[in-house]
C-alpha cells in the first residue's frame, strides 16, 4: 500500500517556496500548491491536520532543495566575492514555505471547498481531496445503481461494508462522509438519522 509519493516538478523549483508578487504567476503557483496538498493528503490518507503539523511536514518543506552552484556574496568591505558552499560545489539549502504563505494556500483550499477549519482559532483543519458535494454525488450514484433508494445505512456500512469495497468512497473518514451526506440532505436526496449505535442515513 505504501507508495512513494511523486513530487511535482514545482517541488524542486526554488521559487515555488516564495509567494510570487506577480498576480498571474501567483495564481499558477497557488493552483500547484493546492493540487500538491490534495494529492499528498490523499495518498497518505490524511483527512485532517493541524497548522503546526503542516509546517513540519515535508509537504511544505523540501529539505533537499538545491538553489545554485555558487553564490556572489557582498563582503563587509564592499568587495564582491564568488563563494562556493559545499565541496561538490552544489549548494544544499532548504525550501521552506513561510507560515503566512501556508495560510494563504489553506485559504485557497477553503475557498475551493476542499478545506474546512475545525476550530475558531484556525489551528486545525479538515482536508478533503474531493469536495463533499462530489462525494455525495458518488455515493448517491452507487445507491441508485444498486437500486437501494429508500434504504437505510449506518455510516459504517457505507464506508466499511463489503458492498462498497470497490467504491472510491470506501474507507472515507467519517468527518468527510458526514459532510457529503449533509450535501445530499440539502438536495433532499438523503436524510441523516440516528440509529441504534450511532448515526445512519436514509436515501430517497
Amino acid at each position, binding site marked *: 500500500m505504501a507508495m512513494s509519493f511523486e513530487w511535482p*516538478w*514545482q517541488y524542486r*523549483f*526554488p*521559487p515555488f*517556496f*516564495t509567494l*510570487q*508578487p*506577480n498576480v*498571474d*504567476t501567483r495564481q*499558477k*503557483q497557488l493552483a*500547484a500548491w493546492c493540487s500538491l496538498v490534495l494529492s499528498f493528503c490523499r495518498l497518505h490518507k490524511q483527512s485532517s491536520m493541524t497548522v503546526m503539523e503542516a509546517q513540519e511536514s515535508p509537504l511544505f518543506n523540501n529539505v533537499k532543495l538545491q*538553489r*545554485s552552484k555558487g*553564490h*556572489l556574496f*557582498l563582503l563587509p568591505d564592499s568587495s*564582491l566575492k564568488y563563494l562556493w558552499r559545499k565541496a561538490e560545489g552544489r549548494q544544499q*539549502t532548504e525550501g521552506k514555505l513561510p507560515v503566512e504563505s501556508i495560510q494563504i494556500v489553506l485559504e485557497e483550499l477553503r475557498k475551493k471547498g476542499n478545506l474546512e477549519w475545525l476550530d475558531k482559532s484556525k489551528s486545525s483543519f479538515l482536508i478533503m481531496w474531493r469536495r463533499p458535494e462530489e462525494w455525495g454525488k458518488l455515493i448517491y450514484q452507487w445507491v441508485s445503481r444498486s437500486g437501494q433508494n429508500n434504504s437505510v445505512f449506518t455510516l459504517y456500512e457505507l464506508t466499511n461494508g463489503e458492498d462498497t469495497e470497490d467504491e472510491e468512497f470506501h474507507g472515507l473518514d467519517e468527518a468527510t462522509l458526514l459532510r457529503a451526506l449533509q450535501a445530499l440532505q440539502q438536495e433532499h436526496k438523503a436524510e441523516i438519522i440516528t440509529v441504534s449505535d450511532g448515526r445512519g442515513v436514509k436515501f430517497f
Partner: protein
Amino acid sequence: MDRFVWTSGLLEINETLVIQQRGVRIYDGEEKIKFDAGTLLLSTHRLIWRDQKNHECCMAILLSQIVFIEEQAAGIGKSAKIVVHLHPAPPNKEPGPFQSSKNSYIKLSFKEHGQIEPGRIRAVGIVGIERKLEEKRKETDKNISEAFEDLSKLMIKAKEMVELSKSIANKIKDKQGDITEDETIRFKSYLLSMGIANPVTRETYGSGTQYHMQLAKQLAGILQVPLELLSPEDLVNACKMLEALKLPLRLRVFDSGVMVIELQSHKEEEMVASALETVSEKGSLTSEEFAKLVGMSVLLAKERLLLAEKMGHLCRDDSVEGLRFYPNLFMTQS
C-alpha cells in the same frame, strides 16, 4: 535739489491734484535754502512747489524720481519733516533752480498745521515705482526667453547626436558595415561642442563612485549653459516635461520610485527579453550577478529584473540566501 525743473504749475492732461498744503519749506539735503515758504502740491504725476510770495517761482519733480520717503520726527526746536530720497537727475533734464547738488534727497517741513502724510506721497509715488518695476520685469522676461532659446538649440543638437548614435548603434547591432571615420569624427565633434572632450563610459570608469563622479562633472558642464542655479527638484520637474515637449530624452519612473533618464528610442521592454535569455542561460541570477554580467549598475539591473518579473518572464526565489530570479516556469511549463 538739482532734480527740480521749472514749471508753470499747470496740470497736464490726465494729471490730477491729490492734495496741497501751504507753509512748506524745502531743504536741499540738510541745508536751508531760499525756498522757505511755499505751497506743496501733490498730483498724480508730480510733486510741485510754488512760492507763496512769488507765484511765478514754481518747480516740480516727477514722482518716478522718488526712491522712497521717510518721516523725521520732531525734536527740540526742530519741526517734523518728510525726507524724500531721489534718483539721480536724467542728463537731459529741463532747467531748474539748481544746476547741480551734492545731495540726493530733499526735506520738507511744515510750518502750518498738519502735513501731507508721507503715506499719500508714497502711495502716489508707488505708481511711478511700479512703472519702473514693470520695465524691469519685461527685461527679465526677455533674458529668460533668450536663455531658453539657447536651451532649445541645445536640445536640437542633442537630437542630432541621438540620431547619429542610433545609426552607429544599429550598425553595431546588425554588424553592418564599419562605422565610418566621418561618423566617428562627427560624433566626437558633437561631444566636443557640448564640452565633453573625453566621453565617460562605463568601460572607461566602470561602475561605482568613480563613474558617478565623472558623470556628475560632465552633467555640471552641460547644465551650466543657460542656467545658474538649478535645484534637484527643478531638474526632476524639467525632466518630467521632456516627453510632453517631444524631446529626445524622457524620464522614466519605475514602480519602486527609482527615476532614470533614457533616450526616447530606448525600449526597456526589449531589454527585458534579452534579460530573460541571460537568466535562462545561467539558470538563475541575483541582481548583483546580472549587473556584473551585463555591465550595468546594480540599481538599474534590479529594475530591469523587476520589470521582467512584472511582465511575467521571471519569477523570484526570496530566501535567507537573498533574492534570486528564475525564468518563470510556472507559466511556461504545463
